[in-house]
């Protein structure tokens, strides 16, 4: 019971509200512009999330983050989605070995929090180790 109360209280800090039971907490929307940043700083757009034989939607495999190129509902709130996207970029950087050019992925997230906005935040993956077999 104490643990549950702690988790409920933690929900006001945790963007995901894990075990804090705050369903339908926002009516926010977001859209993503994804670019690949190459070692020399060149920025290459990733239209519809496809690059070097990879497909964002296929690799994500989760409806909440699929097709973010068009404005869509922010599952569990904007803060949760941005956090998921941040981890997703790192995961993409680690799991696209055929991409020998990209140093890191960068996503510009434009969002409306409960119909207010737009607000913009930029997130990026960690640097990839290029030239690794």
């Amino acid at each position, binding site marked *: 019971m104490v643990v549950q109360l702690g988790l409920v209280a933690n929900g006001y800090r945790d963007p*995901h509200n894990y075990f804090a*039971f705050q369903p339908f907490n926002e009516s926010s929307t977001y859209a993503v512009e994804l670019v690949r940043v190459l070692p020399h700083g060149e920025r290459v757009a990733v239209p519809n999330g496809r690059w070097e034989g990879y497909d964002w939607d296929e690799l*994500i495999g989760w409806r909440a983050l699929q097709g973010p190129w068009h404005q869509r509902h922010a599952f569990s709130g904007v803060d949760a989605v941005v956090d998921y996207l941040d981890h997703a970029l790192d995961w993409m950087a680690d799991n696209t070995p055929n991409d020998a050019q990209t140093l890191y992925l960068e996503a510009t997230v434009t969002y409306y929090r409960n119909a207010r906005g737009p607000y913009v935040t930029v997130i990026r993956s960690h640097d990839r180790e290029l030239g690794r077999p």
Partner: protein
Amino acid sequence: MTPTTTPPTTVDWRIRCRRWLDDVFDEPASVRAVAIVRIVLGPSAIWHLRPFLADALDGVTYLDVFQQKWWPWVPNAPAGLYVALLWIGVAAAVLMTVGLWSRAATWVTLAVVAYNFFLSETHFRHNRAFLIILLAGVALCDNGRVLSLDARRRHTPDDRALIWPVWLLRFEAAAIYFASGFSKLIDPDWVGGRVMHDRTLRYQSDVRDALGDTLADPILEVLTARAFQWVLSPVAVATELFIAFGIWFRRTRLAAVWVAVAFHVGIEVSAQVEVFSVIAIGALAIWAVPSTRDRTLVTPSGWVRWLDWMARFDITVVPGASWRMVDRDGTVLEGQLARQFVRTRLPATFLFSRFWRYR
């Protein structure tokens, strides 16, 4: 001068508290309500595992897509083992439902559902968290003593066991309604109607697709009105808070259960919440008094036996007799009053009964 005696009210309070703790932790009581929750959770667990199995049949597991670990020490099962675990979970859920090796089957189902849940944060949903909590509560209870194949195999039927897990489940269920309601109460965007209004505007095309323009137009005119959502949102918040508190007290419990059923049906119609509606309505059984057949009923209608899932009555069917019910406290109801009372205590007729007259 220092008082040497404790005021009587304090003593009463302490005695009542001690008796309650004795009842909770030492006195066996009927676990029939827990068995009902078990029967609801079995198919719900299968329904919950279904999309993961469907993906696995298409050759896709959590290993092939974005995964965000809850904790690094949770081991990743290889694809073959993972799929086997999912099928074991389904088999255990079937055993749970029919009540064969009930408690062990519930633990196995819980283990599979929880393992799958904690493989990746992307598997998180509120309804899945609630499913895990309910499975844990039911597993902690000796839930196979009734409404099970295990019970049929027993030589001396006895549906009683320790029920402290029921109190734990009651706390969890009420905490969920409270957490949801309170978080919305302190959010001006929610309680002021902004969230609901924007959501309704965004999904009005779904209503139009489902109902067609002719029917949808007048409905949407109301639903998308800012004033309507300004009223509806605080009502929704009050509903959750009423359930959270009202369900604890005998005088308001039946009303809270009625409101909760209507609330969950409303959510199921208007949103996609996976197994939440079913398990939340099923979990309302835990609020029944954990004693069975402690009211006597004489009735000419055999159907009562079939609908008395919670075993509220010790029933004698006498063709041609008039209805007569003796309550726990000795109160006798006859004729239409007895019939009305019975309807308030049968799950299948409760929603349409005059429950407010028989609290």
